[in-house]
């Protein structure tokens, strides 16, 4: 701002005038007040974290409930099978083709009336529930870690370095099965 109204309005002069307009220095209390507001944000963080924790817990519970609900029971299970067919195991395997030729007295059945095929579901040998038992101290430590994660106090670069503090896993011992011998039942020979 030169105060000379007759001077041409050059870029340089314009910039000088704008610069003069924006010369504002922070007041002495500015930094202290800014710190105060930042501290207020820090105080709000636990509330924020607890909301996240509740959300995470609810999501985890929902996943477990849905998982248990959809998980079938172990062992073979016959579904959609009429009660009368339960005594004829051969029909269970080939229902619509194997059953009809034997039933000579029955009239021919139209294709639309053919009973629905029976589906046999088999499950893997091992049980669906795998449980791990850990000590109370480990559980408490895990809980703390989950809290830290939920409060978003975790730097992304920290987790991969956990490998360096992980203990080596114990070797798995070989499982040896004893041979199974079948001996005939004594009472059956007399029949």
């Amino acid at each position, binding site marked *: 701002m030169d105060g000379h109204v007759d001077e041409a309005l050059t870029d340089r002069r*314009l910039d000088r005038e704008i610069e003069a307009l924006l010369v504002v220095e922070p007041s002495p209390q500015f930094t202290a007040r*800014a710190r105060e507001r930042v501290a207020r944000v*820090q105080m709000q963080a636990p509330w924020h974290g607890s909301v996240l924790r509740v959300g995470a817990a609810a999501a985890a519970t929902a996943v477990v409930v849905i998982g248990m609900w959809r998980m079938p029971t172990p062992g073979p299970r016959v579904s959609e099978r009429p009660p009368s067919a339960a005594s004829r195991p051969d029909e269970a395997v080939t229902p619509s083709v194997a059953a009809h030729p034997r039933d000579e007295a029955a009239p021919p059945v139209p294709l639309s009336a053919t009973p629905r095929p029976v589906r046999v579901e088999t499950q893997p040998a091992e049980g669906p529930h795998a449980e791990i038992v850990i000590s109370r101290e480990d559980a408490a430590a895990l809980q703390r870690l989950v809290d830290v994660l939920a409060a978003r106090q975790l730097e992304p670069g920290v987790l991969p370095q956990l490998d360096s503090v*992980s203990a080596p896993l114990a070797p798995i011992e070989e499982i040896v099965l004893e041979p199974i011998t079948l001996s005939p039942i004594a009472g059956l020979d007399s029949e």
Partner: protein
Amino acid sequence: MHERVDHVVGRLVTVDHDLERDFEARLVDSSRLAIRVAFSVLRQREDAEDVAQDAFAKAYRSFRQLRDRDRFRAWLVRMTWRMAIDRQRANPRRVEREIQDSAQREIWGARGAGVEAGLQAGRGPSDAVDVVVEQERAEYLWAAIEALPEKLRLTIVLAGIEGYDVREVAALLDVPDGTVKSRLFLARKALKERLSWMAT
């Protein structure tokens, strides 16, 4: 296992302290920039400081997620600008009234002080008139800047803060140097057209 988790938690606490220190350094370093950006919109020192403090609090909330910490100043500038614009839009009448009151105080204050100082220094009343003219020129310049489109306005303001050059303004706005040059050209052209009567 809990020892290992405690070890990790201990390291996280250390990381947190580092984060606090880092943020504190940036707060001190960028205070003037934030206030001036807010002031360029609100033209009120108290409001500008208030908005700048809010911007720092907001920045702190997301500071952890800021991957490239060197981008902090650019991030802060954009945030402060947006918050200042929002405040101005939220209560335009109050802001306008305060600006007018402040301008009147400055003009009348300058008139009085200029006349008094000029007379005490043994100078003529023309010096006092110069001061008054200067204040009124500033008012017209403010009005011309506010009439600019937002992108041009922010660019010319940043170029005027602390004498930033084209490259520094481009870094703050996260745009190419050429974009800043063209925006500065358009902004200066518009300001000159608007203020041309003052140069005669």
